Structure formats: C-alpha cells, structure tokens
C-alpha cells in the first residue's frame, strides 16, 4: 500500500477481502472503500470505485474493528507495567479499534480530572479509540460513591469497581440504584471477597495437589446471584465481567429468562486454558478469576455460542517482569493478552469449538451493543476495521510483543491469525511489515 495515512481526504480501497457483514453475511473476493474516515462503498459498488490508495487483503478477512470491554492500559501511574502508547499500539496490532480502559489506575479513575487525563493521553498517543470505565466508588474502596453523573459527562462509558469488588451489599445496592437513576451501565467482577480470601487459584484438583490457596467456585456464584437479585430489584443495566464458572453462565441465562437486563463477558484465556495451566507453578497463569475446570471451560464456550455470554474480552493486564518473577502466590494476577486475543479465538475456531461468526460477534457486535453502539461494515459507518489472515501464523515471544507485558499466554509457539491492517476512524492504526 502506498503511504496511506487517512489524512487529507485521501481515499483507500481494500481489495480481495472476505468481508464480514452484519448478521454474519460474508462477501468473498470483495472490496471496500474508505474516505474521510467513513466507509463509502462495499462490494460491487466498491469494485467500480477508484481510490487514491489500494490495500490488497490477499483473501484475508475484513471485519469490523475488535472491541474490548476490559483492558488495562496502566496509565496514569504504572509506567513500569505499560502506558497508553504501548498498550494501544499492541491492541491495534491485535485488531482492536476500541478498548475500554479499566479504572484501576493510580490515581484511580474516580474523578473527571483523571478521565480527562486518560482521554487526552489517548488523543495524543493512541492510534485507536480509548473509552474510560469510571470507578463507581471513590478510590475503588467500596465505601463512597464517585460523582457518576460528572464522570459520565467527562466521557466514562460505564462504571465498575475494577478488580477490587464491593464487599458491602448495602453499598453495592446503592451503587446500582444511583447508576440506574442516570441510565448508566455498571460492570462488576463477581467475587465474594470473604470466600475468595487469600486464594489465587481454582479450589480443586490442582490446588489440592500443589498446596495452593484456592478460590472456590462459590466465591463467584454467590456473588453472581447477589448481583442478579440486586439488579432485578434496582433495575440497573448490569454487566457481569469475566465469568469463570459453568454455574454462573446458567444463572445469567435464568436471569435473562426472567427479563433482567444483564449481559456478561468472559476473558479469552478462560476459553482456552484450565486449572492445569498452573501445574508447573507457571506464574503467567495466575489470573483472576482463576482458570477453572475443563467442564467450566466448555460451559463458557457454550455460553458464547448460545449468546448467554455477549462478549469475549482480553482482560489484558501488562506487568513488569518483577511482578511475575516470584513464587506463584507472591506474583500479581493477569496475562498480557491483547496481541493474542484474536489468535486464541482462532485456535478455538480451528478446533471447531467456536465458529468464526460466533467468535467475531463476541469480539465486535456483542461488546459494542453493551456500549450502546452498532458497528458494522456498512456504508456511512465509521471506518473502524481490521484485516487479518486467519491461516497465517506468528510466534509471540518477548522480542516480538509490543505490549510492555511480556507474559503472553502462549510464547514461542506459532499462533494462527495475523492482522495485516487495522483502521481506526479511517486512519491506519496498525499495518504489518509484510504489507
């Protein structure tokens, strides 16, 4: 492609693509034209349109840009673990055009000043769209409400308590009731902290064998039930983040049948790995919620397939190496996933555990709906898209990763899915060197 950068009204035509249209329709061997940040022509019409630049998709898939509801950019405050520039560039490489920034920053995103800081940082240094998630309680302490209306005005798209949770059910109920007043969406990681206690791994076979401190399944399911009941009572728009248990999926499905406005997501690594990943004390797989059993994994995949789980997230948590270089129980939780999320999903497609349309829906339209948006490859829509070859492979390793976090789930192993181009608002956010 000749030096297309989306500026100065230049237009771009992507040719030879497999276009993923709304309702999982596909156009093969097709073109799409972008001008002024907007999709202007698709299919036959695009074939007959001339553009200033062309990009040969070489038979690769052209899909809406991926949307991540849970991404840690570590800015402000944790520069040793990552920053907006490094992590959004990594996200663009992974095919993402929108990432929601978790409120667990330092300082916590509980004031419009911090929200503006994140948005200004993204404006200046991110090639993709960054949507801040506000802290629902001040300092994520789970005690005092943040200025939710003010934060929403400053640009927070939803509210949660990050990885900290809210211990007190009365506070949780008030958080929901107050958010409901303004029609705001709340996103919570269901975890009963008294039951999770000092645990850091699924309470089961591997914790028993290795003597690790377990987080029992009921730490999640008791919290899911509590949140569903409170959401039903308060009428808030509840989104449950990063489910890990089969039983949680069942409870969400039941709640939907009762008409409760609840949505849910799962982290991609939960669909690929189980508790056995910790069998060699590999601290990378210290994640929260913990990786659980094979039957949980299968139920989570079924949840995605059946639409009970609306979105798959990266739950990207970059760390400096020291945070992971210690005995397992002394390490910090989280994987560096944003560059491998799509590839992990394509591994599930290769194994016939998930179809490509289901995967893409859970990475695009599913999360977008939760944010109140409807992205699609259609004329007039913003040109947020990615082009990837699902069969080409790449090998993540500490030197090839862009993220400051080198603890990717699969290292030194070929993974399917190479993103050749990511366009955010019509501008090139990522282009692979081979193009």
């Amino acid at each position, binding site marked *: 492609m000749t030096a297309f950068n989306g500026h100065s009204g230049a237009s771009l035509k992507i040719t030879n693509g497999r276009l993923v249209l709304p309702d999982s329709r596909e156009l093969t061997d097709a073109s799409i034209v972008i001008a002024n940040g907007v999709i202007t022509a698709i299919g036959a019409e695009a074939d007959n349109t001339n553009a200033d630049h062309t990009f040969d998709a070489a038979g690769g898939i052209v899909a809406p840009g991926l949307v991540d509801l849970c991404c840690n950019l570590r800015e402000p405050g944790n520069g040793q673990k990552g920053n907006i520039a490094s992590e959004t560039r990594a996200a663009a490489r992974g095919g993402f055009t929108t990432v929601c920034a978790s409120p667990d920053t330092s300082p916590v995103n509980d004031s419009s000043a911090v929200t503006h800081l994140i948005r200004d940082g993204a404006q200046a240094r991110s090639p993709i769209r960054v949507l801040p998630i506000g802290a629902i309680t001040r300092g994520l302490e789970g005690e005092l409400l943040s200025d939710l209306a003010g934060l929403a005005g400053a640009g927070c798209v939803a509210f949660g308590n990050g990885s900290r949770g809210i211990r007190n059910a009365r506070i949780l109920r008030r958080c929901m009731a107050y958010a409901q007043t303004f029609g705001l969406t709340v996103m919570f990681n269901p975890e009963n902290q008294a039951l999770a206690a000092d645990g850091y791994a699924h*309470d*089961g*076979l591997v*914790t*028993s*064998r*290795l*003597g*690790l*401190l*377990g987080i*029992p399944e009921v730490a999640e399911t008791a919290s899911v039930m509590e949140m569903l009941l409170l959401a039903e009572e308060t009428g808030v728009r509840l989104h449950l983040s990063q489910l890990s248990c089969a039983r949680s999926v069942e409870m969400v499905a039941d709640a939907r049948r009762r008409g409760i406005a609840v949505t849910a997501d799962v982290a991609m690594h939960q669909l*690929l*790995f*189980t508790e*056995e*990943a910790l*069998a*060699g*004390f590999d*601290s990378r797989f210290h994640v929260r919620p913990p990786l659980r059993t*094979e039957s949980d*994994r299968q139920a989570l995949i079924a949840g995605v397939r059946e639409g009970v789980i609306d979105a798959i997230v990266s739950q990207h948590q970059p760390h400096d190496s*020291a945070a992971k*270089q*210690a*005995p*397992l*129980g*002394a390490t910090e939780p989280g994987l560096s996933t944003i560059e491998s999320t799509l590839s*992990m999903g394509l*591994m599930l497609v290769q*194994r016939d555990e998930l179809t490509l349309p289901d995967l893409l829906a859970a990475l695009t339209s599913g999360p977008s709906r939760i944010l109140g948006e409807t992205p699609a490859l259609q004329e007039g829509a913003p040109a947020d898209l990615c082009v990837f070859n699902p069969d080409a492979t790449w090998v993540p390793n500490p030197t090839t990763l862009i993220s400051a976090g080198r603890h990717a*789930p*699969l290292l030194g*192993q070929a993974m399917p899915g190479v993103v050749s181009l990511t366009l955010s608002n019509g501008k090139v956010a990522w282009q692979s060197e081979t193009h």
Partner: protein
Amino acid sequence: MTANQAPKRSLQLTEDGQLRHFLTLDGLDRALLTDILDTADSFIEVGERSIKKVPLLRGRTVVNLFFESSTRTRSTFELAAKRLSADVLNLDISTSATSKGESLSDTLLNLEAMASDMFVVRHSQSGAPHFIAESVTPGVAIINAGDGRHAHPTQAMLDMLTIRQHKGGFEGLKVAIVGDVLHSRVARSQIRALNELGAAEVRVIAPGTLLPRDVESLGCTVEYDMQKGMKDLDVVIMLRLQKERMEGALLPSEREFYRLYGLNQDKLALAHPECIVMHPGPINRGVEIESAVADGPQSVILDQVTNGIAIRMAVMSMAMGGQVAERNQNLAGREQA
C-alpha cells in the same frame, strides 16, 4: 481439549533420569524412590562410625536457605551436608534480606555470586523451590526443605525409610494420616510416596475443614470417624496441629480436636497390634497425641529423626551427582561440536 502446554522437560531429572533437583515426589517413579531409600540405608552405617564422614561433597558449598524458621529440618540438613564433607552456610532469610525489601530473585543472584553448589530451600510459598530451580544458574542443585502447603519430600522419604525398616516393605500396608491435611506439605508428599511405593490403602482422617478440596484425587480415602479409621492400620501418621487453626473457624477448640482426632492408647488399640506410630514433629502432646503413645513401644518418632540425616545425605549426594553428570555431558557435547 485445552491449550495447556505440555510439561517441559522434567525440572528435577536429567535426560537419563538422574535426580538433579529434589523439589517434589511428583514425577519420580518407584525405582527412583527405592534408589533413594537404598542409598540412605548405606549412609545409616556412616552415622554409626566414630568418624562420621564421607567425601562425596568435598569442596562443595551447600547453602541452607531458610525463609521460614526451622530447627530440626535445618539442623539435619546441616549435619547431612557436613557428613558429606561439604562446606555449609546457614542463612536465616526470614530475619535478613527479604525483610529489607529485597526480592527473592535478587537474594538468589547475590548468593549465586558466592559460587554455591546447592541450595536447600524452605519457603512459606508453595512452589518457591520450583521458581528458584527455574531461575538458578545451571549446575546448582535445589533441594526442597518444605514449601508452603505443597511438598516436603525429604520428610516423606525419611518416613518411608522408617516404615520400610519396621514393616519390610510397602505391599499390602494400610496407612492412615490423621489431622490437618489441608495445611500439610508433609501429608501431600507422604500420600504421593505411599501410592508410588505400592501401599494398599492410604486413609486420611480429619474433619472436613482440615481436608483440601477433592482430596481423594491425591490417592487416598477419607474417614471422618477416627474410631472407624483406625481399624486394621499398620501405620498411623499424626500431623502437627497449629494453634492458629482455631482462629478462622476451622476448629472449635483443641479440646474437641483431641477428643475426636487425638491419638491415645484406646484408639491405638483399635489398629493392628503391630501398628507403628509416626509424627513428623514437633509434637504437641495432648493436642494430637497422648504422651503415653508418643513415648510408647509402638512409637518410632525418634527413628524418624535419625533417618532424616541419612535420607538428606542420599538426596544431596544424588542431586549433586546428577548435576555433575549433566555438566560433564554438556562439556563432552560441546567438545564434539
């Protein structure tokens, strides 16, 4: 099918199956465990000589790296290393570097700079010796002296040596482990060793709050009622109960625990008449065991301590041997190349 990666090359074995670290009994087969017991047997005789030394680790430096305090285990490791003619450095890290904020990795780098050949590690975190074995310079052997709730493989092996001395072998044996299995690295290693060596039955006897989730998956049966659990036992192993277990509502009181799960003469009478009584120590008299039993004719608790030195000599000399063999092989390989 999941994408969990296949285990890498065994961390504690060389390519030809020799011990090079001793971290856990997982992955060690019956032949190797028997080899450890036989080697230890040969060292028992050394302890009976007037000059109790063999030169197997002469010129080697062994560092006792204890992040958790211990008297018995550390002193038997020290004696074992000295009987193998090694130079020994005892570091009580719980009161030194890490309390000044130094990370474990940094502590290790400093110690490696002192050209040590072996670290004997005790740590409160499960898996800490694995972490150290993965990050240490090749050629340095790591011996696990107890990590968190995970493993205490030398303790389990000295228990196996004691059982073999008294019972002749493991075939057909019925063994019970009584007490706080949940927090016990000793119990986990013992269950593994007894299964691998062919014991007929391993029972754990404890209230539900002191058992790990899915404990049967470790290779044992569960009995809540100690009276029933004592039936036909050849070996009963009592575990130490930490006083703090009353705090998180795991147990109501020492009194109730002792009444239900303490070993006294009445309960011991329910076992096979030749049943031996073991305890990894230090014992809490009147909490998990009655003095008359601890000091009685069926108790082999002091044999366990004596055997501890021989087992530790065996494991240290075998791991050093594996490291040396591997180094020689690598050198030969490089010369050929």
